[in-house]
């Protein structure tokens, strides 16, 4: 509601279609109001200044991002940062808030526009009363106003609607919050501090925020109704349709115009008091997201997780507050604790001590301590100060503020980044924190062994590079050596498909399939090394660079057109990250090639008639949006696809990504993500679980056993189904 409503309503100018602003109020009351308003502005400005000062301690990358300097041409780009206009639309339409969450998002949209409308109303009123009337008086000697007549009527009609939208949206959100029993709004931590903790201030902060908004909105309508009743319901006020209805309701309850005037005088101060206090409170509370979240959304770069940013110049990773980018520090303040990441996170789901939400809230509390900013509520407290609650400067942030176990629990599946309605990029943040741990040599032994094997032998299995192509033994033909003869496709087989006994059979089948289809392809043999996607996500940037250099050198020796990958992880880094190191060849995943070969008839098949479900690998479906080709393959071989509830870019991680496959389960884990996923599939009543990633093949082959679904669920690679669907003569050759 506009702030400057009159407390006492006397002497309306006759025949004018308007209402008094401070009309008849004493000069003292006016002075009090303006002093309070000035104080409000000062308190607000101070709080905001402190926050901006905090952001300025971070590295400047926001502007670079807006200018899209970080973009590097890629022969097959995935997701470029949206153009400014598109990004702006996403903010104004609340698109990310409504995504996969229609009801809550729509309620938020109502509140967003309702609140924005009422803010505009106040600005317009102030422009008339404080500016236009004074300026016109100084210039012409008499005070002019535009706040009357048709403008007045339209103003009230429109902003009454805005008020109603805000109230409806707010009430829906509050009821939903009060009734919610799900994990999203459950503030229990994923990682348990030894001394315990309390988050009651979080809950209080939420209710103070929403509650005071509701009081402001309702008292606004209240004073409007009381004023109109006091003025004996003039006909033109029917344009103020909601206020008029409230006035009629008061009259119906037997309130006299005189009593309405008296009540108005009191309620006006309540309304104004709450409104001013709320404005002053914004930079010290959850309400801050109204200012920071749009900036986060405008500055967010959807490419950043797919192509990780390098560590800060001259630093191994994030150690102090100054290592964070300004955008990241701003992001911390944008978090509204909506809990979408918390719900979707496979680590949190499995019981591991990581929740993306808690990570952000912990970092925010720590950054607030470091940066000297304060929130009045929205604090976590602990009986014994520790981690983010310690207060005193605590560095390095990785291991001190955020426990090492928490950082290692991340699978980099990107579900959190995908879902975050305010554009927070959790994964690059986690990787930068991991980098500082790796720099200190702090990691679990199994990971250390894997990294040492990767640097010594070029594969995580610690096998001799000369054994890499041993899986090709037993093929009906010899796979060309791409270093010795030109080929169309350079097949990057990857560690798991080369060395894991269970997956080697699938690799052989794919080789026979491609051979039968007359595809020209070859291998790098012992010169192929791990592509480094997960090495980079573990935080071992130097080793990643070493692998890239060696792989690029090996590729320079070969003559080929396109890289074909088995592993979606390889696919991601080659497609999105290698171009930054000078790589300029297109990259394809084998599901893309298979779909093409089946649809063009180059691989003749008969329909299988099986009912199956398909698991989208994170690095294929979510990271690279390749969700159709595998489904086209299934359709081409006559399989009926029954979708799991979490499919395509909303897929659920198997738990192997981000180097997790080289680590042991956290002791806190109750149910592995892969087991959770198999149960999801089992509930569909299908007996075939189709994968398109070598790591998935091993993870889910284990999970069907540990969940007791060994009898009723088979894990197959898409390749195996295609081989099965081939004409029997071909299938026989391929079965080898």
């Amino acid at each position, binding site marked *: 509601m506009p702030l400057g409503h009159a407390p006492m309503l006397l002497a309306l100018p006759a025949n004018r279609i308007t209402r008094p602003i401070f009309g008849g109020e004493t000069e003292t009351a006016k002075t009090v109001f303006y002093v309070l308003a000035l104080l409000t502005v000062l308190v607000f400005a101070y709080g905001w200044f402190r926050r901006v000062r905090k952001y300025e301690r971070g590295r400047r990358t926001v502007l670079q991002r807006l200018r899209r300097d970080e973009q590097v041409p890629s022969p097959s780009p995935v997701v470029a940062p949206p153009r400014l206009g598109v990004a702006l639309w996403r903010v104004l339409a609340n698109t990310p808030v409504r995504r996969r969450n229609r009801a809550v998002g729509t309620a938020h949209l109502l509140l967003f526009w309702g609140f924005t409308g009422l803010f505009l109303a106040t600005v317009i009123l102030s422009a008339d009363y404080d500016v236009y009337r004074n300026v016109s008086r100084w210039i012409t000697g008499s005070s002019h106003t535009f706040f009357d007549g048709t403008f007045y009527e339209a103003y009230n009609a429109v902003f009454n609607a805005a008020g109603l939208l805000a109230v409806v949206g707010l009430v829906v959100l509050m009821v939903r919050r009060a009734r919610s029993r799900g994990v999203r709004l459950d503030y229990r931590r994923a990682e348990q501090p030894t001394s315990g903790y309390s988050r009651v201030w979080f809950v209080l902060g939420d209710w103070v925020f929403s509650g005071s908004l509701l009081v402001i909105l309702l008292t606004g309508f209240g004073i409007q109704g009381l004023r109109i009743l006091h003025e004996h319901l003039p006909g033109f006020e029917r344009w103020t349709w909601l206020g008029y209805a409230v006035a009629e309701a008061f009259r119906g309850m037997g309130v006299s115009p005189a009593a309405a005037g008296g009540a108005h005088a009191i309620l006006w101060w309540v309304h104004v008091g709450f409104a001013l206090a709320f404005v002053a409170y914004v930079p010290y509370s959850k309400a801050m997201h109204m200012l920071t979240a749009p900036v986060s959304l405008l500055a967010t770069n959807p490419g950043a997780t797919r192509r990780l940013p390098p560590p800060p110049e001259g630093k*191994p990773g994030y150690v102090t507050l100054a290592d964070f980018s300004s955008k990241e520090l701003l992001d911390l303040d944008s978090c509204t604790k909506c809990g979408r990441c918390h719900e979707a996170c496979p680590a949190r789901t499995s019981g591991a001590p990581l929740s993306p939400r808690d990570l952000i809230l912990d970092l925010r509390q720590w950054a607030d301590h470091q940066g000297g900013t304060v929130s009045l509520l929205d604090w976590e407290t602990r009986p014994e100060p520790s981690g983010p609650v310690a207060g005193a400067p605590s560095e390095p942030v990785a291991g001190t503020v955020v426990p090492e176990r928490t950082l290692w629990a991340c699978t980099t599946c990107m579900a959190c980044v995908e879902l975050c309605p305010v554009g927070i990029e959790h994964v690059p943040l986690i990787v930068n924190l991991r980098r500082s741990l*790796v*720099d200190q*040599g702090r*990691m679990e*032994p199994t990971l*250390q062994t894997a*990294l*040492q094997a990767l*640097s*010594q*032998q070029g594969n995580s299995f*610690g*096998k*001799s590079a*000369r054994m890499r192509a041993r899986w090709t033994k037993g093929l009906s033909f010899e796979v060309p050596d791409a270093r010795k003869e030109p080929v169309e496709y350079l097949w990057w087989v990857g560690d798991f498909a080369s060395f894991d006994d269970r997956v080697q059979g699938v690799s052989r089948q794919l080789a026979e399939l491609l051979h039968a289809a007359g595809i020209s392809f070859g291998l790098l043999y012992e010169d192929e090394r791990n592509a480094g996607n997960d090495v980079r996500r573990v935080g*071992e*940037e*130097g*080793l990643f*660079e*070493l692998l890239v250099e060696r792989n690029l050198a090996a590729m320079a020796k070969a003559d080929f057109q396109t890289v074909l990958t088995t592993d979606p992880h390889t696919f991601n880094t080659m497609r999105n990250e290698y171009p930054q190191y000078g790589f300029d060849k297109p990259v394809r995943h084998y599901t893309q090639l298979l779909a093409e070969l089946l649809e063009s008839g180059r691989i003749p098949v008969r329909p299988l008639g099986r009912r199956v479900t398909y698991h989208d690998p994170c690095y294929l479906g979510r990271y690279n949006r390749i969700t159709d080709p595998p489904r086209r393959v299934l359709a081409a071989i006559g399989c009926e696809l029954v979708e799991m509830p979490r499919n395509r870019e909303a897929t659920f991680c198997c738990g192997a990504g981000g180097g997790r496959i080289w680590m042991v389960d956290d002791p806190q884990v109750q149910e592995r993500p892969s087991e959770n996923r198999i149960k999801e599939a089992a509930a569909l009543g299908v007996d075939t679980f189709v994968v398109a990633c070598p790591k998935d093949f091993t993870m889910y082959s284990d999970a069907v056993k540990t969940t007791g679904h060994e009898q009723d669920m088979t894990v197959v690679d898409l390749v195996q189904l295609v081989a099965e669907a081939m004409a029997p003569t071909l299938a026989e050759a391929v079965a080898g």
Partner: protein
Amino acid sequence: MRIVVPIKQVPDLVEELELLPEGTDLDRDLLTFKLNEYDDHAVEEALCLKEAAGAEVVVVGLDEPEIDQSLYTALAKGADRAVKLTGDLEGWIDTHRRVAALASWLASEPFDLVLVGVQAVDDLDGQVPALLGARLGVPHVSVVTRVEPSGDGAALVHQEYSGGLAAELEVRLPAVVGVQAARQAPRYASITRVRQAMQEGSIEEVAATGADEAAGLRVRRLFAPEASGHAEMLEGNVGEVAERILELLRTRGLLKA
């Protein structure tokens, strides 16, 4: 305190080992080399000592394949100096020649402690620490799992034996210690740090002397291990299997009754 850690390169056993036609050495062209695991522990124990009590750590290696990588890695982990002894060092350098070269360099290098891996895949009898101690005329202790300074120019060393026995000895410094295992697993040096060490290029090269000394032994022939039969699976019911086990034990003279 000044700690010298001699390190050496050994063949990476993930590669298949092949013998030269004359049978006196491995075909080294087919091998990749890595730091001897026990030397890695010696470096780690030296760095732990440095962190706990303060020390200067000097790693020294003979000019063997890929030794630079190991020296730079040690620098990246926190060693203060790296020295490479160069010269005519082709092929397998046996223990006596290795010790002669190290001792000759150490004669002009002051040290309080030499920490060296107790053995290596091509030196399973663990002669290096003992020979080095003898050559330098200082005490030597081997199979050590922890070293701590104990004041008065001495050090406390822990040894572990089989059967859960342990010993704690005090040794007068300077001394040579053969390290079985460091107090903690060898740390990880990130590739970024190793590359930084490389850019600083701080390996000192010193001409090796003494390595041309006659070897203590001469390799006449190496043999690849031969597969000798397979395990016999005992089949049948419990009674039959038990009978067969008894019979086997009797025929091998392991059971008298």
